[in-house]
């Protein structure tokens, strides 16, 4: 019944070999990291400029004071939510097929959540005063809630990645003898003396289940609170009671797309075709259809309901989106980034690894621009006219430094995922074996 892991023809030794193969520091890895590092340094130069000259180096101004940094932050928080969906919800529902890709989902989640915190800092006018948030933090500000839940989410995702990985870390400790000394030492201390006893497994399962339950409310609140950053203001277009669920459903779409891309990358580069199979892509594709459907539903609600009312400020905002000067981007994002890809993946051939990955890239890009559409146009329609300011202040276009700093955040995510995937097996070895023994015994 379960087609995802290629039948029972793999021996345990073969599995160990296949899945531990990627844990090394090969030339390809060094080249890739070198490329990432150089790109990152170029981007960081722009951040240095921003620190020197202030946020004036961006395209932000008094009327669009939140731009692509905040949009990007919302996007990152969104994408990080996937770890919760795949490992927790599906894991607890005992959906077997997700087990080999669950770790990839958690890697994606952890990396995006970690970098999300940094993005907020790049958006601050006074990053040197970051500590003020802890010294003078006030509980009634959604920003403080946001920081609190992001930090908690990073910690719990980290644990959720780590604890089920204990048997695999122990395997690395025992089997990998040709890795550098520090790495062996790291495995030894990280494995916490794991030696595959039944008692240890029982403990591990208990803690994992606890974390799986814990992460659901936290993941939901991280996203809901982020949406409140907007919904709690009195601006038309933001001031919406369904912003919470709207954001959460959108997050699943972006997250699924990101995981599909990562799966494709690992499958091809780490030669994991036997473990991350075409069937996994098919099922991820179906999952994507499901979450996209919910999201489309909220999109319709968010647009039709205010759009139906004739003369309110909200209606003006929606009309501006549908026909006004944001309309090109709006329709591109809605149709190109959501509806068309959604219709395509209804067809089975489109859920094959390559086409699905391409569609996922489009969806992810659409999801990013969608966040810009949530953040920016509302600010360009203030209640009082924009007057006596430079002409450019009636619009917003990001500058090179701003784009570079945003690109830097993506580079960082890729770096984190790359390094973690080089230190640890990306497919849970013990779970694959367990799965197989289970099947063979049947």
């Amino acid at each position: 019944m379960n087609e995802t892991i290629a039948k029972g023809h793999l021996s345990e030794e073969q599995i160990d070999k296949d899945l531990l193969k990627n844990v090394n520091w090969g030339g390809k890895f060094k080249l890739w990291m070198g490329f990432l590092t150089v790109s990152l340094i170029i981007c960081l130069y722009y951040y240095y400029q921003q620190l020197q000259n202030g946020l004036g180096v961006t395209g932000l101004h008094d009327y669009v004071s939140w731009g692509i940094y905040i949009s990007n932050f919302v996007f990152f928080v969104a994408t990080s939510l996937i770890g919760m969906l795949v490992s927790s919800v599906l894991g607890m529902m005992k959906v077997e097929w997700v087990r080999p890709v669950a770790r990839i989902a958690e890697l994606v989640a952890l990396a995006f959540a970690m970098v999300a915190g940094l993005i907020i800092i790049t958006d601050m006018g006074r990053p040197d005063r970051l500590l003020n948030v802890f010294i003078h933090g006030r509980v009634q500000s959604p920003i403080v809630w946001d920081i609190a839940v992001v930090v908690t989410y990073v910690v719990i995702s980290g644990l959720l990645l780590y604890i089920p990985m204990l048997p695999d870390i122990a395997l690395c400790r025992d089997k990998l003898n040709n890795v550098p000394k520090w790495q062996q030492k790291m495995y030894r201390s990280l494995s916490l003396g794991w030696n595959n006893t039944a008692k240890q497994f029982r403990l591990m399962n208990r803690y994992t289940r606890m974390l799986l339950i814990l992460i659901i409310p936290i993941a939901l609140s991280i996203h809901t609170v982020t949406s409140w950053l907007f919904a709690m203001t009195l601006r038309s277009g933001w001031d919406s009671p369904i912003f919470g669920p709207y954001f959460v459903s959108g997050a699943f779409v972006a997250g699924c797309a990101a995981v599909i891309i990562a799966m494709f990358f690992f499958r091809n580069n780490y030669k994991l075709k036997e473990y991350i199979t075409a069937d996994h892509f098919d099922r991820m594709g179906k999952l994507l259809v499901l979450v996209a459907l919910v999201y489309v539903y909220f999109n319709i609600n968010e647009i039709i309901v205010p759009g139906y009312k004739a003369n309110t400020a909200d209606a003006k905002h929606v009309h501006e989106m549908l026909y006004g000067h944001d309309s090109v981007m709006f329709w591109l994002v809605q149709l190109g980034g959501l509806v068309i890809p959604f219709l395509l993946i209804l067809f089975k051939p489109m859920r094959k690894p390559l086409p699905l990955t391409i569609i996922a890239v489009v969806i992810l890009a659409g999801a990013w621009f969608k966040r810009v559409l949530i953040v920016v146009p509302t600010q360009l329609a203030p209640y009082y006219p924009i007057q006596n300011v430079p002409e450019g202040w009636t619009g917003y276009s990001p500058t090179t430094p701003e784009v570079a700093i945003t690109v830097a955040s993506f580079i960082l995510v890729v770096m984190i995922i790359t390094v973690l995937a080089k230190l640890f097996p990306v497919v849970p070895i013990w779970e694959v074996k367990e799965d197989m023994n289970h099947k063979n015994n049947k």
Partner: protein
Amino acid sequence: MNMANKNDKSRRRFLQKLGIAGASTVAGSALLLQGCSDSNKASGNKVKVLTADNKLVEVDVAHLKPGDKIQDLKYLQKRGREGIPGKKFVMVVDLAKCKNARKCMKACQSAHQLKPEMHHLNVLEMEDPVKKTSYWMPKTCQHCDNPPCVSVCPVDATFKRQDGIVLIDNERCIGCRFCVAACPYSARTFNWTEPKNSDKMADVTYDMELNVPQKKGTVTKCAFSADQLRHGKLPYCVSACPNGVYYFGDQNEDLVTNGTTKKTVRLSHLLEENAAYTLMPELGTQPSVYYLPPRESEG
């Protein structure tokens, strides 16, 4: 200086008017006018001041002279947060009188060291959709009694004082601009780059009541000229207007003074007789700035 003289005269006239208004209000008004020098006895609270000949000396708070420039950040911060007891400052803007002279904007920008594109006070040309006419509307921070900017600030850098004024502490502001997003009146402006004259202002001690020196990466907005109120003077914009647009005063006393004519009138009468309104009352922000409607038609 010229402006100080004018204000002194107005102060005398204001006091005369108060005499007529009734003895009971005089004590309260005198407090507005004399600021915080509430006792002449030494309070034991020492601050650093810069004397006229540029010497830094320590004096007791009670012995401060109007010309002294206070150089004591800690004292200024504390005073700025506390506000002036017993007061509830309000402004009334008579739109019928505004002729777009923009003297208020100039005075404001020079007092607060603002660049030309930064406005604590912005005179907007507003369309009247029904009559198809337009009128000029000076827009300041509304000093909301239920200020959304204050609730969203993560570090309490923007806050509401007991006298109703909403201020910013730019020594604490982290520059997240959440308050900018939250203010429905677009009343806030940000120091995106190095502020004007920042090298000249480097040695000036920060006074949050004036919000000067401005700092890069922090937010700024109208402060109802809290520094002026402290010395019993009217706000910069109010006294700069040549057309009698602005009234300013204390709601608790129910008296406001016109910045041009220096006439003091009953706030409640002024509001009632002229069908005063506040901006977007439906948002529940409860502004402290009232508007008297623009003229019916131009001719």
